[in-house]
Every structure is written in C-alpha cells, then in structure tokens.
C-alpha cells in the first residue's frame, strides 16, 4: 500500500515537530540549571571575601561571616558519616551476601521507602527521641538526623556495588578454605571499595544540602563550637535564616554562603563522576 503523500507529509511534520520539542525540553532544563548556577555565582562572588569565610555572625550592619557555619557543617557531616556509613555499609553487605530471604526483602523494601520519607520527618523524629530527653539542642542530634538520611542511600548503593563483584572471586577464596567473613572483608569489600566510596560520597553530597532536619536538632549558633552537646551552626540553616531576613547585607551573605555550599556539592558530584568514569 502506498501512503498518500499528504498523509506522509503530515507524518514527517509530526516527526519533525515532536523531535524538536524533545530537544527543546532538554535545552530548557539545562538553561534553568545554568540560570540558577550563574546567578549564584554572580551574587556569591561579589559578596565573598576572606574575612567573611572565617568570621562569626554579627549584628546587622557590622559585617560578620560564616566561619562557624562552615566548620559546623563539616562537623555535622562527619558525625553523620560516623553514624550512617558503618550501619549503612553493614546493612548493604548483609543484603548482598545473605539477602535471599523474606527478612532481607522486607529490609530492602523499607530501605527504599525510607529514602522517600521527607527529611523534615526525620527532624521531628530525632527531636522527640534525642533533643527532648537530653533537654537541649545539640550537634549530636543534628549529626544523627543527617546520618539517618544517609543510611538507606548507603545501604542500597553498597548492596548494588557488592553484587557487581564477580562470583568467581568469592568461590576462589572459599575454595582456598577462607571462612565466609574473611572472604567478605578481605576479598569482596576491597573489590567493591570504589563503588561503595562513590555511594558514600553521593550520600554526603545529598545530606550536605539538608536544612529541614537541622532546624529542630542542631538548631543554630553564633559561635565556633567544638562540643557535641551544644547547638551547632550550619551553612544551610544560616542560608535559610538570612534568606528570609529583610536585610540586604544578610541577603548578600546568604548568596555567598550558597556559593560555598554549591561549590562543595558540585565538587563532590564532579569528583564522583570523574572517578567512576575512570573505573568503568
């Protein structure tokens, strides 16, 4: 059957229109990203200076900086890793190595849904189980809240990465008479290390931008703080407080803080991409 030429032309036209539209969508998405990043860079660079990076916040009109927020964010992330990585990785190893039963399926399902739980809920949870009994806002509570968000991400990445390790490696080690735990820690984990590290880094990138769970846990602080039982400043909460304030000076500081935060996050993402690209 020979298609009528009018109909054929219409089909070609539709084809052209739709493919162009799809390409346009991609352009729109990338443009939005560039607009956001460009604006952050523009506002941030004009507001940033060295003093700003090491100062603590001051009353309006007196300058001040985000030094304590930067260190605060790092301490919180460190705590989160300390709490979240071991548990997440161990659970991931369990799912990969012993994960063929209903219990593991349940854990897997819960883990997946846990990642979808809004981070503010985690904040509420940690407030009720840690802040209220301890009677104060604390760095510890903030770190645990962030750690809780990291765990499911790390668990599932770890599981996936360990599954990529060829069975023959395990069989070889077992055949040499090694016990199972030696095989896992000595052969399987090292083989999957790069992948697990990648997952961990992405989890870090994700929680380093979290604000909501910190509002009721790490709270905020005007000072450099090195104690786990004290409230702690963080870049994200500082950005939030400055963003909703009316002061132009604080707005500029919010943009500068955002630039720092974005630089950190983009760096992690690009590094991850760079390393894994080499590997695979």
């Amino acid at each position: 059957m020979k298609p009528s030429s009018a109909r054929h032309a219409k089909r070609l036209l539709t084809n052209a229109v739709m493919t162009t539209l799809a390409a346009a969508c991609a352009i729109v998405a990338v443009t939005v990203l560039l607009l956001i990043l460009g604006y952050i860079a523009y506002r941030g660079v004009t507001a940033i200076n060295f003093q700003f990076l090491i100062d603590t916040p001051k009353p309006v009109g007196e300058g001040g900086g985000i030094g304590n927020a930067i260190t605060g964010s790092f301490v919180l992330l460190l705590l989160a890793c300390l709490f979240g990585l071991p548990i997440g990785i161990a659970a991931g190893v369990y799912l990969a190595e012993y994960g063929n039963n209903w219990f593991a399926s349940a854990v897997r399902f819960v883990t997946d849904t846990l990642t979808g739980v809004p981070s503010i809920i985690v904040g509420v949870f940690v407030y009720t189980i840690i802040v209220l009994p301890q009677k104060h806002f604390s760095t510890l509570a903030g770190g645990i809240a962030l750690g809780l968000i990291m765990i499911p991400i790390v668990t599932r990445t770890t599981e996936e990465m360990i599954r990529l390790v060829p069975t023959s490696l395990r069989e070889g080690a077992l055949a040499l008479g090694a016990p199972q735990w030696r095989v896992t820690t000595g052969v399987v984990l090292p083989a999957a290390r790069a992948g697990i590290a990648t997952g961990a880094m992405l989890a870090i990138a994700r929680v380093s931008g979290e604000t909501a769970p910190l509002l009721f846990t790490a709270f905020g602080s005007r000072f450099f703080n090195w104690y786990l039982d004290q409230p702690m400043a963080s870049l994200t909460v500082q950005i939030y407080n400055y963003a909703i304030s009316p002061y132009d000076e604080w707005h500029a500081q919010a943009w500068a803080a955002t630039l720092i935060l974005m630089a950190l996050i983009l760096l992690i993402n690009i590094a991850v991409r760079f390393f894994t690209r080499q590997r695979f």
Partner: protein
Amino acid sequence: MPSANKITSHVITLLLAFILSLAAGCSGEHGGTTGAGRQVRLQGAGATFPNPLYQKWLSEYGKLNPNIRIDYQSIGSGGGIKQIKEQTVDFGASDSPMKDEDLRSAPGEIIHIPTVLGAVVITYNLQGIQQPLRFSPEVIADIFLGKIKRWDDARIKADNAGGVAALPATDITVVHRSDGSGTSAVFTDYLSKVSPEWKEKVGSGTSPNWPVGLGGKGNEGVTGQVKQTPNTIGYVELAYAVQNKLPVALIKNSSGNFVEPGLDSVTAAAAESVATTPEDLRVSITNAAGATAYPISSYTYVLAYKEQRDAARGKALVDFLWWGIHDGEKYARDLQYAPLPQEIVRRAEDRINAITQGGKPLRAAQ
C-alpha cells in the same frame, strides 16, 4: 591503585582521630562545668521582636566577659515559650506574657523579666507615597479582617485627607506572621481591644488564624515580604522598619491623636500603667490612655526558671540580665527601643534577685 588505597586509609585514620578528640572534648566538658576559668555557655531562644537589640547586647556583653558565651536564636515568641517549657534552652524570650495555663504546665516556676519597650508598627510598600500614612484603629482591623481590600478605599482616604498623594488603585496584600509570635499577640491584643468584630472572629494570641494575607517567618520574614512585594501592609517591631528604611504609619490612639511610634510615644504608653503593673510584671500596655501614647506598644520579656538547675549557668544568666536592664539600656535607644521606666527597672531587679539555685539567691551570691 595501591597509592589511592593508602591515601584512603590515611584519611580514615585522620577522621577517626578527629572524631575521638571531639568526643573527648565533649566528655571533658561534662566533667567540669564548674571548674575555674571554664567558659560558661548559655542558650536562649524566642522573640524576634527584640532580636536586633539582643544581638547587640550579646555582642557587647561578650566583649566585656569573654568567658561567658551567650547565644540567642530568634525563633519567635511561641518558640521561646515552648522551648523554655521543654527546658531545651536556658532562657526564653517573648513579647507577650505567658498565659496562666502555659505557666501552670511548665515543670517549674517561670518568671518574667522585662528588658525593654518596643512598638509594633504598621509598615507598607507603596510607590509614590512620601508622607507617612495615617490609620484609625477600625481601619486597621478591617484591613486585617479582609474587609478593606483596596488601597484607594474611601475609609483609608478619609484618615489621610489632605497631605497624602493619591493612593494607588491596587489590591492590599496583608503580610502576617507564619510562626507563633509575641508581635502577633501584641498586635491582636490591640485589635481585640479596638474592634469587637476582631475579638469575636479572630481573638488574640501568638498564632491567630489570620483571615487574609501572606505569612512570613519572624519579624525578619514579615519585613522581608513587605520590602520585596509591592502594595503590601504588615506589622513589625519598629527597629525592623527603621533598619530597612520602610515607612511607618501614624496610628490614632484612644485620645484621638495620630501618633508616630518612637521612644517618647512608647515611653508615654508605659508610663500610664506603671502604678497598676502586677507583681509578676505581666502586663499589656496596648491602647494606653494618654494624649501622646502610641497605642501598640509592649514590654518584651526574658523568661527564666526561678530555680536554676546549674549554679554557674544560673549565675551567668542573672549577671547578664542585670547588665541588660542597666548598662544594656543605652544600646536600646540607637535601635529605637525605649528603656524601661525607672520604677519597672527597680521591680525587675527584685525579680532577678529572686532567681535561686539550690534555694540560694544567685545574684546576692557575689
């Protein structure tokens, strides 16, 4: 990549060492809270109304007493009341006195220490209006009730007869607080006094159910919304409007005069009620009588437990409060807050002296 592995393990070792030192620092702190030369840390949270002043105080007080570190987070008066009740902070702050039921449900006796006086002002974002607008109480109530919807409403015009350029023919966008707020409590307390309809429909409190408008978080948030959105009207503490160069409306007081908010008119409002202020200093001074009194004025309070849990922290707190109501008052004027009347300062001293630890007054302990 063996070298990369080595680096990784070094990094992990370093991280662990860092964490351990942190943990050690943490436990050490628990061990010796009363040790000589140790830094004493106080955490406060609450009202945004006096926040510009409190930040100044903390900054100045910190310079005088480097080993006492006081932090104050402006999370709103509602937050201040909640967190002092939960004992998650050493002191709370609120502009509206705590309600009886809140005081009853607290785990200990909470006392109110007034620190300064401030004014809740009506501010707005209108193009081309040079002179400050004037409002009568009923008009304010009806704007916030959503009954007056346009800037060129006849009743707004009537208050501003002569002198004010043409009001724009645009919708009014009301901005109010989204968090629990002493500023809201003071404002709604005033509106409940001047408008029966307001009292019946909305009432007064830290988190009223606003009939119209946008919500902003904190005095900061409301000021920000007004500043960034054209044709808005909102209520904020005077300092916020002045710091951000926003216009401030004149309001008709109970004597029928349009009064500008400021040190003198706020002081005048407080003067009326000094004699009748109750023992616990919880008092509302809105809609005060007096020809020059600004009608939406308020004390702002620090909330603290009468019986402190920790001697060192309790001592630091009373010393700071004592400094605040004496030396601190000189910073108030620069930021448009009115210092306390002499009589109230004296009575606030009594309240500070009443703060104890283990039954012993902390202030007298020096």
